[in-house]
């Protein structure tokens, strides 16, 4: 499924970019994150554990987060893959920064998310709304950090 959104910042593009490239900011934006450690011998890749709790579902997901196609200070792709609860989630999002005439910056994000396994079978009627809410939480957290870093 495809999801997207836009955030507007007063900060300059370089400033927004440096937060977007900061592993601590990415880690801090993942809902329920418990662990976020660099993968050995690899740049821009981390092992992550997140506790997800929604409706009566509660459990830990383990997976990897990777940055690629980095084109400073304009865009990169963030790829997430994880498993837990007998399910596999994968997704990737391209974040793009556009400078505004007033000195501010627009962040556009375009994501594609896939969920398969037990959660997808049982939660089919709500999987899209849940993915949407999680993405909004992630970018909401990221946006807050960008504003705080300014």
């Amino acid at each position, binding site marked *: 499924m495809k999801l997207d959104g836009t955030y507007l910042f007063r900060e300059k593009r370089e400033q927004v970019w440096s937060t977007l490239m900061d592993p601590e900011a990415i880690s801090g934006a993942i809902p329920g994150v418990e662990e976020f450690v660099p993968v050995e011998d690899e740049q821009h890749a981390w092992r992550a554990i997140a506790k997800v709790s929604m409706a*009566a579902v*509660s459990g830990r997901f383990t997976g990897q987060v990777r940055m690629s196609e980095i084109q400073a200070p304009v865009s990169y792709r963030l790829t997430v893959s994880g498993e837990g*609860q*007998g399910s596999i989630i994968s997704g990737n999002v391209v974040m793009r920064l556009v400078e505004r005439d007033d000195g501010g910056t627009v962040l556009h994000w375009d994501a594609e998310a896939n969920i398969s396994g*037990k959660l997808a079978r049982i939660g089919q009627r709500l999987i899209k709304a849940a993915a949407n809410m999680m993405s909004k939480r992630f970018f909401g957290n990221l946006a807050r950090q960008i504003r705080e870093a300014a």
Partner: protein
Amino acid sequence: MWPAEFDYARPSSVAEALQLLADNEDAKLLAGGHSLLPAMKLRLNEAPLLIDISRIEGLGSISNNGSLTIGALCTHADIAASADVQASCSALATATGMVGDQQVRNWGTLGGNVAHADPASDPPTVLVAFNANINIEGASGGRSVAAADFFIDLFTVDLEPGEIITSIEIPAHPHEGCAYVKMPHPASRYAVVGICVVLHKDGDSCSGAHVAVGGATVRAMRSPGAEAALRGSSLDDAALDAAAAALKDDIANDLIGDMSFPEAYRQEMAGVYLKRAVRAAGG
């Protein structure tokens, strides 16, 4: 379909239950269990401890002294059959009578229902329309939250991990008619769209209306646009068309959809069911 092993505690008071919650991270409250237990059997939740609050006294009755107070442990069947509820908030009797099937209604509780906050469930829509308050106890005392603020997002409510819902209060709200109507999912009977309308009339004209929508949206929510369109109208077809259009605008950013019933379809049906709800409420 066996759950993972868990511990079990059965406190006899709210204070005792709160203490157990404070001492045991990841513990879950068990009331009717009709959302929690299926998830545990599917191993989507492996709570190490269930705190069974179902036998705590004083949380299972309905009283009416001006406002209607419904204990958190009242089952959907209790509420649907209550003469007090039928008299002062008949739409809630209708909605609780539509939840799941008879077995679910006999066990599922209103407190559990609102804590779970399934967007396709029926009672929250009525509670939002009637400005109900959710009464909550926690370690630092009690608080009360308006239903419209309580339901924040999909399965997300204003309730902290250490808190317990004790009752749901519906303030006195004299009205000339109210109704809850829904488009049930053909297989699950969950609301694809659910609408609650409360009407105030002055002769043939509408002096005010509350409109709430659920099922189509991530949470139960009011529609100020539809309410404004109905207010002061004679509830003719033109007014209903305007209200339906305003409702569709109000929910545009909060729609949910799936393969069978996409967002745009639910948005359209919300307008259709609003008109049916107004007519069912006597408009």
